[in-house]
Structure formats: structure tokens, C-alpha cells
């Protein structure tokens, strides 16, 4: 139990871990101690379970290849019920009890922001595969010495908005000759920078923003919203939704709102979305970091197929990034030759890894979004899929498109034949 006594002392994590390794090393001489990675997410949530599943899948694949430098990867999962308080306790357990090398946590900005100071306090690398708020990387940028342990393993809201704008420019304006839109976002922290950027870049992309509607995330009746939007007669609705998804989509379809929806809709990124909406998703355009059947990188399809084979549904948007995070942590440990937090951080900053949906690399301490994923050609880009008869058909970027635009009959496009 000496290990425990030490664990109580200052710098609990490091000393405890060191002592632990030192003490138990002989016993495990035959089989070197595994690299433990904590995964904190709510498994009752589609977005959350994708993280846990993907992490397990990635770890097993690595272990199948003999692990990292002979050391196996061990995933320890914690359910946080999407509560920041619960997540903090889970993080403490991960670090002080289970002595993990790093933690992959949550897709909810509130939770990640609550964990950020604890990553600093317990000096343990933290990567979020799904949260979008710019605050995460801003904190790192503003107080690097303290917060350098946090990495933003998913695109910041601003980049997501940029992606939507690029797509709008190429397809909505370029192909469908649309000229106007209404921005509809849930009133949440992650959508503030999202909307700031899109309000600025949509006009540049050629879509006049007729109105900007933010609604409470616990809204259940969307009729008034759609009616308000329709009254403005836009050619398209640019969505920014994550807490909600099923409900607006279903009501959009059942009320036969004649305007297409395109943009961010996190819940719409998994196959279960089709079931939950009973197919109301037909024709909805969603910006995703990857699609199961599109070879963004050589790893995409193998991963997606393996995932679908094992868990029955396609990986949610955070699934791809979670899988990559496991790999980059593993590589960082290997390069660092230890699980020392500061060394790990250095190595993680050097990350240059071709993942399941693009090349993973983080911005440096002097960039605006420190420790955020690099976005753009050659790094991470996103693609846009459309729900068609239960499948996600990729339409953009065109070089990887594998289908054609079609909309349900109630949709009225600017020029009826533009789609052809």
C-alpha cells in the first residue's frame, strides 16, 4: 500500500505513478505495464458512446499490432452523465487511482472547460474529441504554462463555420444558385463563435443572411421558428445545432417547411439518426468530419467498417477524432519514451499523424487557437453529406462526392432543375 501513501502526497499523480511503476515493475517484468488512457464520456448519449467505443476499437487495433513499444494500450472508461462535477471526480479517479497517462474526455464544452483546470492541477494531458467551444483553446493560449496540458482534438466552432461557408459557396450558391439564408442556432456557448464567423463568411460565400435566429436549447416546439424563417423567404436554412437535432428535423419534415436545411447538426452524424427521426432526415445536409464510405484518408473506411461491424452503427462525429486521439497519445508516449506529462505534452505538440479523417496536428502556443486542430487543406477538412433513404451520401468536396443532391418533394428550390 506504500503506493497509496505516496499518492496522497503533493504531485500525487507523478510521484504515485513513478512509485507505482517502480514498485510493481519487477512483478510485471515479463509483460511491461500497459499505457493507460482514461476515457470520460456519457455512454447514454449517442455522441458520448461514440467516443468510448472508438477509443476501445483503436486501442484493440493497436494492441493487435503488439501495442506501443511492447506496451499494451489499456482504455479505462468513466461515465460522467454529462455532468461537469461528475466528470471532475472521474478525472481525479483516472489520475490518482488508475494512474492514466492521458485522458480523452467528452464532447460537451461545459464538461471540458470544467476539466481544463484539473488537467493543469493534476498535470495530466487532456484531449477532447468533440467539444467545439473556442474557450478551450483560448484558455491554453492565454495561460500556456498552466493550461498546456489541454488539447482541443476537434475543430473549433470558427473552423466549423468556415467549413459550412466553403460548402455553401461551392454547392448552394455554385450549383443551386441560392442567394439567401437564415442562420438558426441553439443558444449555446459553442454557437457564439460559430455564428460570429458564419455571419461574416456566408455573405462572402454568396449567401445573404436574411435573419439570425438563436433559440433555447431546451426548445421542443420548433413550429414558431420555422414559420418565422419561412416568412423571410430564404433559399436555405443554415443550422448550428447539437443539443437538439431529432426534434427540429422531424418537425421540419412533418410541417413540410419548403426550405432545405444545411449546416452543423451533430445528432445527424450517426445512422441511428434515421431511426430516431423515422426518416424525417431525408434531404438534410450535414457537415461532418468524415463519412463511413468516403476515403478521406486510407484509414477512414477500414475504421468505419470495423466500427460498424462491432457496434452496429456508424461512428458519431466524435468517434473518428477519439480513435485518432488514442493513436496520437500512443505515439507521443512512444516518442517520449515515458508517460511523463510534460514530455507527453511536448510530443503531442509535435503530433503529425494521418488519422481517420485527415492529418492531425495542433496549432502552436503563438497561434490564435493554441492546441486546437489545424484546419484546412492538407490537415483536417470536413465534408458534407445528405441523408438519402437511410444512407449518408457525400456531396462535398466534389473530388470525393459519391452521390447527387435530391430533396423531398415539399422542398422548393430557387430553380427547380438546378439539382439536375
Amino acid at each position: 500500500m506504500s503506493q497509496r501513501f505516496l499518492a496522497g502526497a503533493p504531485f500525487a499523480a507523478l510521484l504515485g505513478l513513478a512509485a507505482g511503476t517502480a514498485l510493481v515493475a519487477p512483478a510485471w517484468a515479463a509483460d511491461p505495464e500497459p499505457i493507460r488512457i482514461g476515457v470520460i464520456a456519457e455512454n447514454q448519449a449517442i455522441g458520448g458512446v461514440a467516443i468510448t467505443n472508438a477509443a476501445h476499437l483503436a486501442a484493440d487495433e493497436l494492441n493487435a499490432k503488439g501495442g506501443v513499444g511492447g506496451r499494451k494500450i489499456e482504455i479505462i472508461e468513466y461515465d460522467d452523465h454529462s455532468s461537469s462535477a461528475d466528470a471532475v471526480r472521474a478525472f481525479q479517479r483516472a489520475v490518482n487511482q488508475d494512474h492514466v497517462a492521458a485522458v480523452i474526455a467528452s464532447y460537451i464544452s461545459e464538461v471540458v472547460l470544467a476539466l481544463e483546470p484539473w488537467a493543469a492541477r493534476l498535470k495530466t494531458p487532456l484531449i477532447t474529441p468533440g467539444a467545439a467551444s473556442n474557450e478551450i483553446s483560448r484558455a491554453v493560449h492565454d495561460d500556456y504554462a498552466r493550461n498546456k496540458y489541454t488539447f482541443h482534438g476537434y475543430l473549433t466552432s470558427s473552423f466549423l463555420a468556415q467549413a459550412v461557408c466553403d460548402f455553401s459557396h461551392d454547392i448552394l450558391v455554385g450549383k443551386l444558385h441560392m442567394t439567401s439564408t437564415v442562420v438558426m442556432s441553439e443558444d449555446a456557448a459553442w454557437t457564439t463563435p460559430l455564428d460570429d464567423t458564419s455571419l461574416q463568411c456566408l455573405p462572402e460565400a454568396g449567401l445573404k443572411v436574411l435573419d439570425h435566429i438563436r433559440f433555447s436549447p431546451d426548445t421542443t416546439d420548433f413550429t414558431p421558428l420555422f414559420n418565422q424563417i419561412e416568412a423571410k423567404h430564404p433559399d436555405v436554412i443554415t443550422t448550428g445545432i447539437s443539443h437538439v437535432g431529432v426534434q427540429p428535423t422531424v418537425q421540419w419534415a412533418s410541417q413540410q417547411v419548403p426550405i432545405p436545411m444545411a449546416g452543423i447538426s451533430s445528432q445527424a452524424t450517426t445512422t441511428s439518426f434515421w431511426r430516431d427521426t423515422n426518416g424525417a432526415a431525408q434531404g438534410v445536409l450535414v457537415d461532418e468530419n468524415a463519412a463511413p464510405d468516403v476515403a478521406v484518408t486510407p484509414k477512414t473506411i477500414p475504421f468505419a467498417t470495423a466500427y460498424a461491424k462491432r457496434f452496429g452503427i456508424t461512428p458519431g462525429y466524435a468517434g473518428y477524432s477519439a480513435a485518432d486521439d488514442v493513436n496520437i497519445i500512443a505515439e507521443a508516449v512512444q516518442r517520449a519514451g515515458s508517460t511523463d506529462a510534460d514530455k507527453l505534452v511536448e510530443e503531442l505538440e509535435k503530433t503529425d499523424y494521418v488519422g481517420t479523417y485527415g492529418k492531425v496536428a495542433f496549432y502552436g502556443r503563438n497561434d490564435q487557437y493554441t492546441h486546437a486542430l489545424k484546419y484546412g487543406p492538407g490537415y483536417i477538412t470536413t465534408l458534407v453529406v445528405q441523408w438519402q433513404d437511410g444512407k449518408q451520401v457525400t456531396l462535398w468536396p466534389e473530388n470525393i462526392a459519391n452521390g447527387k443532391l435530391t430533396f423531398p418533394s415539399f422542398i422548393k428550390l430557387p430553380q427547380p432543375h438546378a439539382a439536375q
Partner: protein
Amino acid sequence: MLALQILIDGFAISALYGLGAIGFTLIFGVSGVLNLSHGGIMVIAAIAAWAIAGDLHAGTYIGSAAGVLIGLIAALVTYGLVVRPIQRSRAIPRDETEIFVLTGTLLWGIMIQEAVAYFFTDNPVTVVPLISGVATIGGVRVPYNEIMIAAICWSVIGLLWLLVNRTRAGRALLAASINPRGLTLLGFELSSIYLLVWTIYGVLAGLAGVLLATFLGAGSANIGQLTASAFSIVVLGGLGSVSGSLLAAYVVGYLETLTAYLVAPTLRTIPSLLLLVIVVYLRPQGLLGRR
């Protein structure tokens, strides 16, 4: 045009709120129980309908019917497993039964929420509307489903009225809400009256849940919200007063719709909350409640 739109949109949602709240208020009126697992029961019905209609490919009609049935079962289980034991318990002082029923049903609600989330995730689900397509009323597009929901709600409320005012069982129910002791002296077993009222409640809550799922969608994440809104509506209308709850449901429904249209969707729930506070301060017995 906008006025008509608000009128139409507010109607169905209010009717749904009403249906959800009536059962809640009925139980309180007859047996003095505030069932804080209300939202849970609604969602169980909704999820069941979705799962049976979808996963078991039973089709919307059978699915919805089964959903209502399962909602009823859930209600009866709640009564038999949580409420009745507390009411019967010798160890619990009479004047504290209330807080125990509240805590008990709260815990039960949490259990339901966790269980539903465990088996079906906390994502909201939707049941295919019994009728799809939209009608156009005075230039306002209205889904047939919305019209049907309003129709169903009101016919059920009508049936309930008939039951209470025209049938012997109903009269006994009403009498129990006024003077249970008197009813005992006339040879009515209160236990069977309570069973009856919980059965009615179960059907109402189940139906409300299923309709909710066809209209807005429902999931374990909504459970707290559903309970809270039913509770507020019932208190606003006057605990135990069915007509009061209906009135309150429409007040709240339209207030929310109006706010969403004319003020801002983000503020949707604020005015009804404030109204509630004001009413409870100035007229604690609620709009139509008696003291």
C-alpha cells in the same frame, strides 16, 4: 396571418399540455398525491411506442396503442410499488406522507430516466404520425397530425368529462375528491377508487406521451422538464381542478407561442414562469382552485 398562425400553433401544443396535466391533477384531487415521476411515465409510453412501432416493425397504430398500454402499466406500477406503500406505512407520520410521496416519486422518476437512457440512449425519439401530410388553413400550413392531436386530446377530455359526470364510477370519483370519508360511509372502497383514478391517469399520461412523440419527439432527457411543466400547469390552474388545469395549459401554451413569435425564442419559457410566481403569490389556490 401571424395572428392566425399563433392561434393554430398554440392550440395543439396547449391541448397536449392539458392532456398531460389533467391526469396529474386528477390524482392529486382524489388521493392528494403529487406524482413527480409523471414525466418518466410519459416518456416510457413514448419510447415504447417508438420501439414497438420501429424496431419490432409493428406499425404506428399497434405501436401507439402498445405505448399507451405500457404507460398505463407504468402508472399502476408506480402506484403499487411507490405511492401505496408510503401511504400505508405505519412508520411514516401522517402529516409527513406528502414529503415522502414527493421524494419517493422523485427517486422513482430518476430510476425511470436512468433505465430509459440505459436501454434507449438519452436521444429523443419520434413516432411516425398516424396521418402525415399538411393542410393549409387560411394560408397557414398545418400538419394533419397536429390537427389530429388536438382532436384526440379534446375527444379524450370530452370522454373524461362524460366519465366523471355521467357514469356511476365517475360520480364516486368526484365524490372521493370532495369527501373521501363520506364515500366510505356510503360503502365505497376507497382503495378501488384510487386504483380507478390511477388507471385513468395511466391512460391519459400514456396517450399524452405517445402523442408528444409523434408531434415534438420525446426522450429521457425531457423527463424533468415534462414533470416540471405538468406540475406548474396544475398549480397554475389550481391543484385538483381539472378545468383549471385545462385553462392553465392554454394560458401557458399560448404564452410560450406568443413569446416565441413576438419576443424571442430564447425567452420562450420565461413569461409563463413569471406568471406562475405571480399567481402563486397573489392567489395560491390557483386560477380555478378552491381553498
